[in-house]
């Protein structure tokens, strides 16, 4: 009883304007966050095409999912994307960040050009790269055949399509990580390198034992953002391939979109979204556990 009355008196003593200032957000939260979350949790146990009433089907959406070859396909496609995308981003961003961090002129110019694809719409980048990747008239195959190499079926071969999209996504995002690595590099204290040099460490040793561990936070960020990005991949396959050839670029988001808005399977689509979200959260948590060292002394 005492604690309740204490709470009441503390509420009385609160600044009323605080609640007033929070009010718009609380309304927003109820409408656009809490309500969709709750409704999504209801929807995953139902069959529903928006028009006719909802039908309770318990866990059947999930049973269906585990027998759905396209669900498995979307996960495999996302993994293919990530396995290429993440290492490529780390290596390329690291190379350019180290180069930019050396004593050079025009650093600002280089940095702003490298960063430019990050700010441009994914629609622009995808249309542009669809031309570059074109089998007959694309620039890449034009260059390859000119120097006597065979043309690559970038977007038309099921084995190449997803890797092609991963390369394009790397090109679009890597500028952000160059800048983040650059910020990280500039925070590494110079005395660490001096001490290493006195101890006779080679350039390679310094890179492996000082630079890389100190950049660990940025590497974690790349892993996490790329994982979220991989599962959210939508407009790239939507424009470039429509999910093909042979569903090789069907992404998680594209599959949810198709189920919901092409087939009106709202319940199944919501269940897919729910499971993909769980996968994202668990993968991200796993990555943090494995990658975050927090110990820079080793």
């Amino acid at each position, binding site marked *: 009883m005492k604690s309740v009355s204490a709470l009441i008196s503390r509420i009385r003593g609160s600044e009323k304007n605080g609640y007033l200032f929070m009010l*718009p957000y609380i309304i927003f939260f109820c*409408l*656009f966050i809490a309500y969709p979350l709750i409704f999504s949790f209801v929807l995953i146990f139902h069959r529903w095409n928006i028009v006719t009433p909802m039908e309770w089907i318990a866990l059947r959406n999930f049973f269906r999912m585990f027998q759905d070859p396209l669900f498995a396909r979307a996960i495999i496609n996302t993994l293919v994307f990530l396995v290429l995308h993440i290492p490529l981003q780390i290596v390329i961003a690291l190379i*350019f960040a180290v180069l930019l961090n050396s004593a*050079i002129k025009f650093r600002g110019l280089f940095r702003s050009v490298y960063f430019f694809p990050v700010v441009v719409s994914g629609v622009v980048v995808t249309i*542009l790269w669809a031309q570059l990747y074109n089998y007959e008239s694309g620039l890449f195959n034009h*260059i390859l055949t000119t120097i006597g190499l065979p043309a690559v079926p970038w977007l038309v071969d099921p084995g190449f399509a997803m890797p092609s999209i991963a390369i394009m996504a790397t090109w679009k995002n890597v500028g952000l990580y160059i800048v983040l690595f650059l910020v990280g590099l500039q925070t590494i204290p110079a005395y660490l390198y001096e001490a290493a040099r006195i101890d006779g460490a080679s350039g390679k040793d310094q890179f492996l034992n000082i630079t890389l561990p100190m950049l660990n936070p940025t590497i974690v960020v790349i892993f996490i953002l790329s994982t979220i990005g991989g599962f959210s991949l939508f407009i790239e396959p939507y424009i470039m391939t429509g999910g093909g050839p042979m569903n090789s670029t069907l992404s998680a988001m594209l599959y949810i*979109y198709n189920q919901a808005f092409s087939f009106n399977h709202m319940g199944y689509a919501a269940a897919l979204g729910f499971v993909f979200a769980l996968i994202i959260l668990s993968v991200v948590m796993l990555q943090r556990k494995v990658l975050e060292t927090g110990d820079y002394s080793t």
Partner: protein
Amino acid sequence: MRRIGIYILLLIGLIGFGYPFVWMISASLKPELEIGSLALWSANFSLKNYELVINRIPVFRALLNSTIVSVSVTISVIFFGSMVGFALAKMRFVGKEILFVVILFTMMIPFQITMIPQYILMVWLGLTDTYLGLIAPYAMTALSIVLFRQFFMSIPQALIDAARVDGCSDLRILFKIVWPLSRPVIITVGILTFMTVWNDVLWPIIIIRERSMMTMPQLVALFVTGGEAEGQLGAMLASATLLALPVIIGYSFFQRYFIDSMATTGLKG
């Protein structure tokens, strides 16, 4: 020698990231048959491809729609974000800590979960094919609240207390005293929000079906994937250039702010 090697690698990067855009603009001005070539210059440059795009799809209407939506969302995110951030940073009330934890938690909710219920909500509220439908779900963001709160924490409490003693209302304190001190965070939130909304394409594709209400990225995506471009590469590249142009112009003036905004938050749109 070493230095020359560094410059060569940097130059390769410059060409790799910059050349495709230059090529795109050049190709959008070329006749269809010359697009396959590597050369940037052509004697046959013309605006024919742009004419075709403008005649086929309502480009200017879409640019207007995108501008209305992006500007509205940006103003709303700054206005409400700073209000909530101010309450969380500088006011004392019961439940503040819980509310902040909830806001942090909402940043972790993937769009995959909320997309379908949000669409259904829009249908029920009759907001499909409206500006409000494009604006409302983005009117406040957890990220902006967190950034404003963080910044406001660094403003001395004494300043706010002094203004209160002088009889200043909380809203006046926020807009007349705190805002002028907060230019860096307002710019960061403004650029991030504007860019995210301008480039967003999934939400418009979901809730806008009527052509006159489409945003620019959506209209261009539809132009390219639907039959309207009739497979003409030049017209596709021209529509992509028109979509990129406002960002290219904005970026060439404010690139520093763009890079700093995204580097400090470590987030992309």
